[in-house]
């Protein structure tokens, strides 16, 4: 079977249009990013708490949470307004709460957020043991203290008797996220009947459980931002040098210009969709950098081979020929990567979604830039260098 047979598409003849359009897109993207840096009011790159610093709490509620009530409860914890949104499917009752820490402040907002939530939503719990927020060690202590099975009297160690029960209860919570009712304790067979009723007597059920808490100090955030920028810049440099050594200067410049285009265009897509940029997003960007050069190098490799085979032919024609010869490979490989990234994007869940989005956009952008940016730029630079060499030689003759 064959998707594409032999093609003779004059790709390079479209180079002026393609490069002009791309230059406009990249230029607009750079301006947009710069505007966002200079004026935070403008919605440009949306950095997540990994880079801005702040606190993020993912909570699961027993009943459908009232977002308005959450918002009013948490307003005032930080000078910035809290961002509160549903997470995943609505029937999971999960809410993502995000608070930014204003620059210059060191405050860890985790504690105040949890305390305020507890004061507002768990008022009925009071000082009782909240089975939805306490851990297995605390539950084990509670059981040891109550000693419903009268283990201490037999001389055995109460801690080793009750710890597995506490672990089993917490394992149940781990699987279900939250206890909706104390009757669910019947679903934990490890509990002895006496222990079960002891727990029922002593604990209360808070209305929420914490699924995840993240808190990043502004200083760490700024550090990470610097490191991420450095990592991307250095990997572009590394690729520039590698391609320079393996091929020639014009090709390495072509490859890096194409990569720069890929990164900026993908960032622009992130700005348009206002998706958040976090550590995994940067990981995806770097992957895209690697993947996109991969494509470019395959074409350059073919150009190098054809240059040896067809001496005397124009570089432009050789480039077109090479792109056409590798076209089916380019499309098939992009296709197989698409086959795996698309399910990841569609079914991977909220945590991984932006990551997959970057790869998805990068796949198309990288494919395009390989053909329409990398080779034309390499062509121009070679001609430029050739012209300069010619001039120098002419001067030398004189």
């Amino acid at each position, binding site marked *: *079977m064959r*998707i594409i047979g032999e093609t003779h598409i004059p790709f390079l003849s479209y180079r002026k249009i393609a490069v002009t359009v791309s230059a406009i897109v990249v230029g607009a993207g750079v301006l947009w990013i710069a505007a966002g840096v200079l004026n935070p009011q403008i919605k440009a790159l949306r950095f997540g708490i990994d880079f801005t610093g702040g606190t993020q709490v993912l909570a699961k509620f027993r009943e459908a949470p009232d977002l308005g009530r959450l918002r009013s409860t948490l307003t005032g914890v930080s000078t910035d307004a809290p961002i509160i949104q549903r997470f995943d499917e609505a029937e999971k009752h999960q809410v993502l709460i995000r608070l930014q820490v204003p620059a210059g402040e060191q405050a*860890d907002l*985790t504690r105040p957020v949890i305390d305020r939530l507890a004061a507002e939503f768990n008022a009925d719990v009071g*000082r009782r043991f909240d089975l939805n927020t*306490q*851990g*297995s*060690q605390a539950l084990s*202590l509670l059981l040891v*203290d109550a000693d419903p099975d009268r283990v201490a009297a037999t001389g055995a160690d109460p801690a080793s008797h009750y710890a597995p029960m506490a672990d089993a209860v917490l394992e149940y919570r*781990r*699987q*279900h996220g939250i206890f909706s009712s104390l009757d669910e304790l019947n679903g934990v067979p490890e509990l002895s009947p006496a222990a079960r009723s002891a727990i029922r007597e002593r604990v209360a059920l808070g209305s929420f459980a*914490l*699924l*995840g*808490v*993240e*808190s*990043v*100090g502004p*200083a760490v955030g700024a550090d990470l931002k610097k490191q991420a920028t450095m*990592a991307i810049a*250095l*990997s572009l440099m*590394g*690729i520039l040098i*590698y*391609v320079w050594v393996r091929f020639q200067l014009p090709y390495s410049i072509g490859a890096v210009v194409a990569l720069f285009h890929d990164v900026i265009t993908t960032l622009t897509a992130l700005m348009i969709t206002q998706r958040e940029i976090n*550590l*995994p997003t940067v*990981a995806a960007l*770097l*992957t895209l950098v*690697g993947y996109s*050069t*991969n494509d470019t*190098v395959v074409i350059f*490799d*073919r150009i190098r*081979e054809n240059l040896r085979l067809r001496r005397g032919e124009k570089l432009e024609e050789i480039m077109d020929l090479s792109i056409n*010869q*590798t076209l089916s490979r380019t499309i*098939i*490989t992009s296709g*197989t*990567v698409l*086959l*795996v990234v*698309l*399910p*990841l994007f*569609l*079914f*991977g*869940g909220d*945590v*991984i979604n932006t990551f997959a989005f970057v*790869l998805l956009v990068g796949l198309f952008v990288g494919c395009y830039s390989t053909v329409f940016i990398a080779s034309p730029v390499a062509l121009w630079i070679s001609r430029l260098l050739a012209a300069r060499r010619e001039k120098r030689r002419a001067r030398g003759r004189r």
Partner: protein
Amino acid sequence: MDRKIIWRIVITLVVVGTAVFALVQKRIPLGLDLSGGIHLVLQVKTDDAIKAELDDAALRLKTLAGEKNLPVGEWSADVGALGFQVAVPAGTDRDALGQLASDYLSEYNVDAGPDTWTFTFKANVEAAVRDLAVRQALETIRNRVDQFGVSEPVIQRQGIESDRILVQLPGVDDPTRVKEIISHTAFLEWKEVLAGPAPSRDILLTRTGGQVPADAQVATEDREDESGAVAGKDYYLLRKAAIVTGRDLRTARRGQGQFGEPVVNFYLIPSGGDKFAEFTAAHIGDPAAIVLDGNVISAPVIRSRIRDEGYIEGNFDIETAEDLALKLRAGALPASISYLEERTVGPSLGRDSIVRGVRAGLVGLALVVVFMVVYYKLSGLNAVFALVLNLVLLLGAMAYFGATLTLPGIAGVILTIGMAVDANVLIFERIREELAIGKTVRSAIDTGFARAFGTILDSNMTTLIAALFLFQFGTGPVKGFAVTLSIGLLASMFTAVFVSRTVFMLVLAGRDRVETLSV
């Protein structure tokens, strides 16, 4: 059969066998984002240690000078200037004091002014004090975490000179409590009560004329109402110098008081016991304050001479009593610490991520397999075989090296599926081209593999360069991704180039003339 083919099969079997063995022997450790747990980066406020060192040196000077009849006045420490100043009255023998300073405070430069002497750190002392504080903090945190009972904790300094400490505790389901246990300074002191309790500072100080005496300090205790909420504060005037401190503790345990309420039992080391016995014998009927991090937690009346054991009451419940005992056993932190970064992942979230990631990966794998077989027919089957081996090698290598599997790492595995077939695609496309220009099957396969190899090497190298910087940059989950991606690429070069070639050779072996190739 050709010797060459046999060797290739042996090598393949050994490599794959090693990977399978590693997979069976060890399991791939899950990252915190999948297993659930807590990741903390904390900063040791080493300024606290500098301040403590300066105060300690000044106090030492004053005491020693007092013993030698060299009266010196008040002192004040300045952390920013890394030194302290002492007032030296006119009548003091300056030479004798200078001798004392060079004998006992050798780590300080002395600038003897007309009425104040300035002591500042000599070179390197500052760095040594800060370094020691971080190392002590590391040790204390390690003790506390060990006592708390977390399996496979990671507790390490971030960099040699750094004041940051990384703590990773997998499987912890109670992050708030753990955070409190780690960050609490827990510096315990027993102090003599000079006056108090009084409802306000002014009332407390009426007898001393509104002034705090030079050797005393004011401390407060939270007063609680029936329900346990803080209702106000009681003020105490305490002697600055402690009778004994947490350093004199041998151990501490949660116990029960007279009415069954939780208390913390403590046991002193012999030297501490001597000091305590001497003090309590002389002060029967007086209160002594138990001070934790500068706050009075209780001020019981001394009823008898106490030698080496006693108990601390406070407003404890079982958990706070247990935690305080733990912290006292593990020792106090030499400086306060703050949290720079915290990431807690509940295990249910991690489990959800694994299920979804694996599901997405299987769908992707199925699609790629179907495509390869439809598009390249039997050769496609060869590629699928290589792909499966690639996955086995990738997972085996991760198990062997103990590389952590994180959520982005799962994405890395999935991405590897998509990218690994690239090598096969390059080879097969090349073979098709060679066949198209009329080469025989054997020579088409030979040139196809030979020509494609250079391309595969170059194109994978660039991805490896990006992965290298990614590894160098990232925190846990991102590092996991970089590792998975790199191993996957290396494995794909082995399976697609070496193993697939072997399969072709095996198929063609024993046939003299091959007319067609299913590609």
